[in-house]
């Protein structure tokens, strides 16, 4: 059964249908949230928030876009809300940035090569490099190059014209070249 039919069934209250959607998309959403939060320790909780919010808000899915696109929109809302709350808390308690590592060299600070596998090192380095980007650029390039979405879907998710999406992706990659020091 395709995602749209599963989403319709889930919208009607079928938990079984929603569980199948979770199985299909949980890895993708977890990776999206992790990449957008710079590898934050909160990524797993936030990814779960995405699915809980999607389950409660399925009535808002009108089938005008692919379920995957809609779910990505929910995920970005959750990440932005989290970022806003974290930012307010930091201002309230006068503490520093949540992830000071993001200010450091992403390759150098990613991990200790002696302790972690190469895969983990690379993922951390990429996530930390993404964290150095302004939010609009980070979202666009993550949706394109990490999640593999096409430009039309990215425009739909971000609410920006396709030309703006293209420009953001170009600028994001140009900045990342410096961050990744390749």
């Amino acid at each position, binding site marked *: 059964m395709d995602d749209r039919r599963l989403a319709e069934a889930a919208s009607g209250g079928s938990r079984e249908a929603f569980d199948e959607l979770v199985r299909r998309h949980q890895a993708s959403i977890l990776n999206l949230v992790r990449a957008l939060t710079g590898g934050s320790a909160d990524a*797993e909780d936030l990814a*779960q928030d995405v*699915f809980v919010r999607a*389950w409660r808000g399925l009535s808002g899915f*009108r089938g005008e876009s692919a379920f995957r696109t809609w779910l990505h929109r929910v995920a970005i809302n959750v990440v932005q809300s989290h970022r806003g709350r974290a930012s307010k808390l930091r201002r309230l308690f006068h503490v520093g940035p949540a992830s000071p590592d993001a200010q450091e060299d992403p390759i150098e600070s990613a991990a200790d090569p002696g302790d972690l596998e190469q895969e983990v090192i690379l993922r951390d380095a990429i996530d930390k490099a993404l964290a150095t980007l302004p939010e609009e650029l980070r979202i666009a390039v993550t949706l394109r190059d990490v999640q593999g979405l096409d*430009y039309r879907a990215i425009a739909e998710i971000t609410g920006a014209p396709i030309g703006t999406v*293209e420009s953001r992706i*170009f600028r994001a*990659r140009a900045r990342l070249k410096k961050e990744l020091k*390749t």
Partner: protein
Amino acid sequence: MTACGDKHRMLARLADGSGADAPTVEEQAQLDAHLAECAACRAALDEQRLVAGILRSRPALVPSAAFSRRLASRLDEASGWLGILDWQTWTFRLAPVAAALAIAALLAGTSSTSEGSTTTLDAWTRSVGEPSSVASAVWQDGTSSDALIETMLTGAGGSTRETSDVR
């Protein structure tokens, strides 16, 4: 915007390869002509391809069994009694139960009042069809929590569609 600046957006798509987002034949011809003369844009294209390749090689994180179990548990809570605390869940999933209880309460009330009472099951049933009634608000799937409360308190209908920041 400079001539190079005009090409940057297309360079991003050119770096993506030959998928659905690749430049059109006309755009490709324009780019080829420009790239033949512009070393800076050739370097920018190489840079775009390199970074896109690195990002696409990002090893995917695989959700652990513990992640899946905790998520299932949270969805159970959202679906069950704890989910009732959420107004949206309440209005969408338990509206029929609430309506049945309301009808039962009405029936009990009318049976203990005089025969001249104007509140009867028929009247209640008819009122469901009226857009501003409490009964109607309870039954409608799209009734937002705020609208439901407003209707209950004032007897007047509020907005009946749930607003959401996700569509």
